[in-house]
Each structure stands twice: as C-alpha cells, then as structure tokens.
C-alpha cells in the first residue's frame, strides 16, 4: 500500500520539452513511473522522453488517459500551468517549480477549494512510493520499501532523514515533499490524514521548518485524530527573526510567529517527540517500530 502514487498512476509531464522536464521525465520512467504523455503549448505532435507531446493537458487526458500531472514549467507560466491541471479534473497535480509569485498561488489556492484535484507543491521535490513510482525529482536510490510515511517542507532535508532511516534498514511507504512556499496545496494535515488512513504506514516522520503555523495546526490534528506514532523535526531553530532563510515561506515574522520553539512545543504537547538531529528522528522511529 501507499498513498497518492503507485505504478498504476498515469502521468502527463507539463513542460516535458524543457531541460529539467525532459531529464526528470526520463529519471521518473527509469524508476518505474508510468509516464504516458507530455503537454507543452506549441509542441503538440512531437515526441519527448519517448512519449507523445500534446499542446494541452486536456488532449493528454483525452488521448492517453492521464490522471496525474507533474509540472516543470518556468515560474512565470507555472501558475497558469497549475490552473490548466486543475481545470482538467486530474486526480493529482505536482508542481515542482520554484519561484511562482505568491499572488498567483493565492489565485490557485482559491480555485483549489472548488475542485477535487489535489495539488502537491509548488517548490517541492515531489513524492515517491519506493519500488513503485516517483513524481518529481527525488533521487530514487536512497529510498527503500517499508512502513514509514514521511512528509516534509524541504527537499534535501527529506533526503537526509530518509538516508538516516534507510541506513538502518527502515523503509518508507510514501515520502511527500509538500514544498517550502507560503501558499501550498497539500499541507501537513492533509498528508497526515492520508498516512493515518493507510494500512501499511506504521509510523510517520514530519519535517517542518520555521515560518507560518502549519506545524502548529498539524500538532493539533495529531492530538485529535492520529493514532499512528509520529516523530518530528523542525529546521531553523537558529534563524534570526525577519530574515528569509532560502524558502519563501521560511521566515520568522517580526512579531515572533513561526518560531521553531512554538512548533516544537506544540508537537511535544501533542505527544510527538522532536529530534535535535536527523539521527535522533531515526532513533524515535526505530523505537516506534520496536
């Protein structure tokens, strides 16, 4: 079992003719992902990464029964690309693009509330069900099949924590990078709910970071609804207020909201141990799994 993606998922890659899009489409295929089409305006009729390219996502769905999109479109056009995916009634859209203007995402966010399509990202590494399929840019070789669900706001931090787990022989059901922007589609609460309802997931790792209040909301949700044991990690304990730490969303506001302390104490209050180091997170998971 897994959540959101498996080897039946039929994927259209938006932006498949660009450098990143093509490279990662091939990488995804190599991992076992069922890429069925590309969508690039003006490139219909061509072929890229061995699959047919269509001018619109709509055509890719009509012709190839795509149900999921992975978006590698440059930031200036990515908001529009996400709208196209949402308006085509796909099951899932994964936006890898970093640097989409926040106001574009606010409009996307409004549209999301009106559709059944789930959005992951933007500014995320995507998601992977080890041994089956990956949607995005995660390096497949560090993951292993197993029973831990992982959700994270950061890409490379995900790899670090997964590495700590895999090195101990602890595999993953699905790992989801939800992205580092202020406005994202799937958030911690959504991902936790998916893992809680997944029979195979026996423990969950949640990697948060400074900025916003998503981790606090997740802690409240865990307290009320999640029986699966959760271990946490929060990046940015040493970040000074008012400075954006790389991710557009990773900033402690001047009034002191979004601090690591607030997130760690909310998680602890919900019974979630928070590791001081990635190794400690793996220690907690090992304990949970007995």
């Amino acid at each position: 079992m897994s959540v959101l993606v498996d080897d039946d998922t039929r994927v259209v890659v938006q932006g498949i003719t660009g450098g990143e899009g093509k490279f990662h489409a091939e990488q995804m295929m190599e991992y076992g992902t069922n890429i069925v089409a590309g969508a690039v305006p003006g490139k219909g009729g061509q072929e890229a990464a061995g699959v047919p390219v269509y001018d619109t996502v709509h055509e890719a769905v009509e012709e190839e029964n795509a149900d999921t999109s992975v978006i590698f479109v440059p930031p200036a056009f990515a908001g529009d690309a996400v709208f196209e995916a949402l308006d085509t009634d796909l099951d899932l859209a994964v936006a890898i693009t970093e640097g989409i203007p926040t106001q574009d995402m606010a409009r996307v966010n409004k549209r999301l509330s009106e559709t059944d399509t789930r959005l992951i990202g933007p500014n995320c590494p995507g998601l992977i069900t080890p041994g089956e399929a990956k949607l995005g840019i995660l390096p497949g070789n560090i993951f292993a099949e197993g029973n831990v669900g992982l959700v994270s706001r950061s890409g490379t931090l995900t790899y670090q924590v997964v590495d700590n787990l895999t090195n101990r022989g602890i595999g993953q059901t699905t790992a989801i990078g939800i992205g580092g922007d202020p406005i994202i589609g799937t958030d911690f609460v959504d991902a936790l709910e998916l893992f809680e309802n997944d029979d195979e997931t026996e423990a969950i790792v949640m990697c948060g970071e400074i900025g916003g209040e998503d981790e606090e909301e997740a802690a409240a949700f865990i307290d009320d609804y999640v029986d699966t044991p959760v271990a946490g990690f929060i990046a940015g304990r040493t970040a000074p207020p008012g400075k954006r730490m790389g991710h557009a969303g990773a900033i402690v506001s001047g009034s002191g909201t979004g601090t690591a302390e607030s997130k760690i104490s909310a998680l602890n209050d919900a019974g979630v141990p928070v590791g001081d180091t990635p190794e400690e997170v793996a220690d907690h998971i090992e304990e949970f799994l007995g």
Partner: protein
Amino acid sequence: MKLHEYQAKQVFADAGIPTPESQLASDVDGVLTAAQEIGYPVAVKAQVQVGGRGKAGGIELVDTDEEAREAAESIIGMDLKGYHVDQVLVEGAVDFVDELYVGITMDRGEGKPVAMVSTKGGVNIEEVAEEDPDAIAREHIDPSFGMHPYQARKAVYDAGVDPAVARDVSSVLTTLYQLWDDRDGADAEINPLMVTADDEVIAADAVMNIDEDALFRQPELAEMEAEAAGSGDDLEQKADEYNFDYVRLEGNTGIIGNGAGLVMTTLDLVDHYGGEPANFLDVGGGAKAERIANALDMVFSDDNVDSVVFNIFGGITRGDEVARGINEALEQFDEIPKPVVVRLAGTNWEEGMEILNEDLVTVEQTLEDAVQRAVEYAEEVNDQ
C-alpha cells in the same frame, strides 16, 4: 524586496495617495536647500531598510537651519543597525490630530490577502496585534475578485475611524490594495496615516515590500531595487551578485549547503554541538563547479569565519560537480585560508569523493560528524 521609504512614497503618490512634500538629499547642503524650499518644520529621515529608525536616532524633527545642519551631520554617514546611511528624506512635518494604520498583506494561513485598519497608528503594529488584536479590523479579500468597495468601508467602520475621514481612509485603503495587487506586493503599509485638524489624511510613512519572485514582471520596481542597492551589508551585496540565498549571522562557523531546509538544519546542528553559525548559504539545486567555488569565496570573505562546513546531499546537485568546484576554489591558495570540512552524499557522491583533493579539505561521512569537526576547528582557531 523592500523599497526605500522615498521610493514607496513615490509609488503611493503616483497612485494618488496624499503624501507630504519631500526631497531626497545626500549631504548637508542638500538637506538645507530642501528644508528651506519645503519650509520648517521638517523631518530628516534616514533612508535605510530597517525598522525602528526613530528610536535609533535616524529621524529628527527640525525647526531651523542650525537644527537641520546638526541633524544632517549626525544622520548622514551614521551606522544604523548595521546599515550605512547614504541618503535622507527631508519632508514637511505634518500637524496631526490622529494617527491611523492601514495595510495589506498576504495571510498565509488563509492563503488570501488581508486588509487591515486600526486607529492605533504611529506605533509598532505587530505589538498592537499581539497586545490588543481587536484594535485591528481585518477584511480578507478574494484574490480573484479583488477588494469589493464595501470591504474597504467595512474595515474602516469596524476599526472605529472618525466618520469625518472614513470616506478618505476607505479611498486610501482601496488604492493601497490596487497597488499591492498590481505591483505584486508582499506588504503595503502606511503607518502612520496622519489625520490633520482639517480632516485631511496624509501618508507620513510608506512601506512597500515586493514579492521577489514577481520582479520579472515588475521592471520599474526591479529598477528601483537596483537604485536602492549599495546601502546594504557588503557581504549580502556580494551574495546578491552571486545570486545566493545568503544570510549573515554572528558566529564563526561558515556554512554552505544545498536546499533551504538542509542548510537551516546544518546551522541548527552547529549550534547543537556548541558552535556558532556565521551564515546561511544555500547554493540551490543543480549547482555547477563554478557556483560551488563562488560559495567558498563568499564565505571566505567573511572575516568572522574561522572554519567552514560544506554539506551537500545531492538530488539534482551532483557530487562530482561539487568536488570540482571545491578543488577549483582551494587550489588557487598557497595556504587554505580557513579549514574546510566536506560531507558529500546523494547523487554521484562516489565520483565526487574520487575527484575531491583530500589534501585540501577534511572529509566526513555523516552530517553530524562534519558539523562537529567544523565546530572543533572553529574553536581551535579561537583559542589561538
């Protein structure tokens, strides 16, 4: 990206928001000329992008040539919270009876813009938000429709603004939202929005922060940013040139990594193992050798740095490129200026380890070990 006060005021004034008469000056004579043309009393205001300028001595209200000269001499060239003051705004002082606050920002929790109005202007609004949240009227806006006129009126009435100026304040708020929307604002604020004895409203300060990710479609504002450059911290300017996400901190262990979350984690681990991080530097995804070399140059330029930890977990970044960049940067020195600890993992890390010149760096296998080693080196240098 933050506009300077004088730039934000220009943008606001062009949109029809009333602002005091003002002139920019960069020396004492300029201040005197401006003050005489505008007419005393005037405020002399340091143009640096930090909050709390007044308390830090960066704003003076003056009545005479003599006072203006003194203010200009003390403010121009001063170091204000780490920023060098090159320019001041000389501005006609407003005789006010009331100070309001109006602002637009993105409420990330809701994923929507929010308009805010308060009669408690003139003080730090974040403190008001904390101590007396009900003193700020808030109206969330549907970004696909924009602010309905009734919402501007409602926010103003809810805040308890004097009915005599309610219409004008609503109009300022409506214009401010338009600007925020058209110009890809992150925050747009007027604090204080002054009310005069004749019931006129006037923007005595102006804050306009622009979403950096949207600068590609705001060429005029991008130009203003270029104009404003030259007033920041030297190292942060250098980081801008190299196009790194960089934040300078107070410590002596330099940090380079890929991906914001992992770099923050590396900072936290430096702190956890008893060291002090000197900086946040994210080389981003897919960095090639040249960029890696630039990152080392960047961190070496910080005199506070005594050791460097280089932590790369490659996804789209390749270990061989990283190793080439590190060699390239270090081989130009007869003596390595500061000890560098390298940890490579992920894509092509084995190829990277073969390429890496291990005479020039210390290699560690895990993040934890690499950080501890760098902290030790920094302590050793400090003990000498």
